[in-house]
């Protein structure tokens, strides 16, 4: 029966080409616009650590003087608090991170020196965040303690400096120090770059930069601080530091701590631990306030509004546009079906049930949707190409994956069936006698 309806639908669509083209075009444009924005949204709003993000937490305490901030602790930690909390080793895994730019040279190559983002972190960073290695491995906890001159580099940097070959054991010159490469990452593109997310609520929705690539050089925390002294970025300071870039004893926050806690009980314990730490520091006179906070990874990303405002705005816009296309299609389908009132009257008189007429009309609507979906898919590819051409920081992430490919067609057919339901209902209610009389 379905094949027969499909055949009827094809004939009907061929009969009035202009109307068919208008309907298919409307659906294709609507689907193209909404799928482009939906795909970008889908790519940017995913969980960067699926299956694990609920166990990753971001503890915060506040060393700033009273009245310096509103609405909870500052986004990152001061050096003392960060190192104290990390050194207590109360979590299953814990990693400190501090960001800087570092001058990198590879002895034995003729490349000019590069300025790259460097992450000073601790050994737990790699297993905690499931960071994949192409060659070698992470450094060990004893390297952290010994301030070993070792480094892990990104696959991008390995391609650039060593042509993608195994460079473990080779030497890299960071600022004025030589470090030994112990590991090379496999391609790793977390989206967003979750562990560096902070300050999102001050970004006015302009958060594209949270989707930049990860750092090119990773060093043990204390080694990094020594090697690249003077180049560290503060998040904020309550007094201007005397010596910009040298932040260890400065009244500034600039170090972040991430912890992994494998059970709810451990998370509760850790909350108690940071609260008691804040109390203790207040007694010691270093803190003036004892407010603490610990969100898990996804809560922290939400709190920072990582999804760029323009992306959300575009998605709303696209769906408003799809709604207009939907109304448009309803009107056109109505016109199309009711124009065939005579034909439908004959079918009804020859014994077709209302249900059969309804099914036939819906089949036709669905076919329009499917053809519109093909057009929409092509337009989505064009749309994504346009997004890439704008070169946002996440442009290398923008592509259509399999799930979005199917969503395109499901959405197109669903929209057209929705659009077709009312006209089909109207068509199935046509009284056969009245139509036959006029024939």
């Amino acid at each position, binding site marked *: 029966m379905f094949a027969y309806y499909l055949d009827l639908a094809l004939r009907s669509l061929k009969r009035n080409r202009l109307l068919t083209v208008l309907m298919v075009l409307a659906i294709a444009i609507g689907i193209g616009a909404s799928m482009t924005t939906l795909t970008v949204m889908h790519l940017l709003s995913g969980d960067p650590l699926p299956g694990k993000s609920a166990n990753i937490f971001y503890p915060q305490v506040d060393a700033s003087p009273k009245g310096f901030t509103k609405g909870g602790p500052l986004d990152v930690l001061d050096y003392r608090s960060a190192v104290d909390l990390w050194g207590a080793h109360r979590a299953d895994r814990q990693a400190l991170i501090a960001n800087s*730019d570092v001058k990198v040279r590879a002895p034995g190559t003729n490349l000019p020196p590069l300025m790259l983002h460097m992450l000073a972190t601790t050994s737990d960073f790699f297993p905690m965040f499931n960071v994949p290695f192409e060659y070698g491995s992470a450094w060990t906890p004893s390297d952290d303690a010994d301030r070993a001159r070792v480094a892990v580099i990104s696959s991008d940097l390995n391609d650039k400096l060593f042509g993608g070959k195994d460079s473990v054991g080779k030497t890299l010159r960071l600022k004025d120090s030589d470090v030994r490469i112990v590991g090379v990452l496999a391609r790793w593109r977390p989206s967003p770059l979750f562990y560096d997310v902070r300050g999102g609520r001050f970004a006015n929705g302009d958060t594209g930069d949270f989707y930049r690539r990860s750092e090119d050089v990773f060093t043990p925390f204390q080694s990094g601080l020594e090697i690249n002294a003077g180049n560290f970025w503060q998040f904020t300071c309550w007094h201007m530091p005397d010596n910009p870039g040298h932040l260890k004893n400065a009244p500034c926050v600039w170090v972040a701590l991430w912890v992994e806690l494998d059970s709810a009980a451990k998370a509760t314990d850790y909350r108690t631990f940071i609260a008691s730490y804040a109390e203790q520091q207040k007694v010691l006179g270093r803190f003036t306030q004892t407010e603490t906070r610990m969100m898990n990874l996804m809560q922290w990303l939400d709190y920072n509004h990582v999804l760029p405002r323009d992306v959300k705005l575009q998605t709303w816009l696209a769906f408003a546009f799809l709604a*207009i296309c939907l109304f448009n299609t309803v009107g056109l389908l109505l*016109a199309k079906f009711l124009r065939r009132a005579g034909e439908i009257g004959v079918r009804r008189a020859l014994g077709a049930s209302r249900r059969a007429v309804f099914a036939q009309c819906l089949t036709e609507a669905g076919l329009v949707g499917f053809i519109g979906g093909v057009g929409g898919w092509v337009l989505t590819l064009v749309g994504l190409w346009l997004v890439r051409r704008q070169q946002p920081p996440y442009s290398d992430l923008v592509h259509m994956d399999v799930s979005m490919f199917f969503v395109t067609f499901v959405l197109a057919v669903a929209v057209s069936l929705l659009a077709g339901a009312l006209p089909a209902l109207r068509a199935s209610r046509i009284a056969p006698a009245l139509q036959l009389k006029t024939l």
Partner: protein
Amino acid sequence: MQIQPILAALRKHRLATMLIALEIALACAVLCNASSMIADRLSAMRIQSGVDEAALATVQLTGYTPAQAADVDARAITALRSVPGVQSATLVNSIPFGMRRGTAGITTDAAGQHFGGVIEFYVGGPGSLQALGAQIIAGRAPQADDFHAFTGLMPETASIQITQALAEHLWPGANPLGKEIWLDKWHFRVVGVLKDLVRPDPQGWTAEQREWSVFVPAAPGPYLTGSYLLRADPKDLPRVMRDALLAVGKAVPEVVIDREDSHTLPDLRHEVFRQDRSMAGLLIGVIVALLGVTAFGIVGLASFWVAQRRKQIGIRRALGATRADILHYFQTENFLIVTFGIVLGIILAIGINLALMKFFEVPRLPLWYLPVGVIVLWALGQLAVLVPALRASNVPPVVATRSV
């Protein structure tokens, strides 16, 4: 034209009428809001920088220690000044639309009680303010003995130039000359007023805050280094920029040229507003597609109605209605439907705008957008209905005598 029969006919086609009206309503709401957002983005992009952008470029160096600064600067500036076409090469920490190195909160009293806002400190060496081309409208330009050596962020005390926007914000209605601002241990006295000097990052700030800048004269040294401002004839600028990068690369091969931030100011400005430009382009695309789809919908449905009413039209013609009567019938019908849609659309437009203001910090919809949107949609409706209506007016009266 009698409206009564048209309304009676529309009442028989309530569903289709409602559909077109709703489509028009949505189109009206999206059209008004999207146009307002486009205007907002375009006005942000047109911001006055107050400097001679077309004649300026910057070269940024990194990757050396403060101890090496004097030597690096000496070699780099010599190399830059020797590039043919370079009118001046000076040092300034922040660059309009480029590097931002002097953002800090100030107070207007020594005790730090009266917060004045977060402003931008342009810390520049001799000649840099003239090179920028910022216009002084009151007081004086920096003099030779204003430029002090310093360590850290900037000189602890200095005679500064302030933008009139910031002066008006700090001391409304008062003469800013001789007034003072504080920040921790730093303390500055205003000696000049600048017409305009935009922040390096105007986008992150409200329209009022975008020009909260001051110029602090300072002597180049370990903490004012590697951020060069080049001035050249606008026609030569791209060539000068290329040559300058080559010259610096040769003069100081051991340091890193920050190529991402070393550009002409027109290029930097272009880059800063990339996002706004693409959003405005997208909105324009949506508006065009939207008007197109709406017009198609009207054409489709009007054609259907004309086909459906062929017989009635024939009867009317046979009874003495002229072609113009038939034409006007369909035009009036379209006008009524569109008007109905527009009334809904205006309410929807204001509602959507309120929601957008709440969730997306979009500015309030200027009310004059609504009548403009209304006229556009009326025109669109009349244009779209014209072809089907003309076809209707061409239906011959003889149709009335046929049975089908």
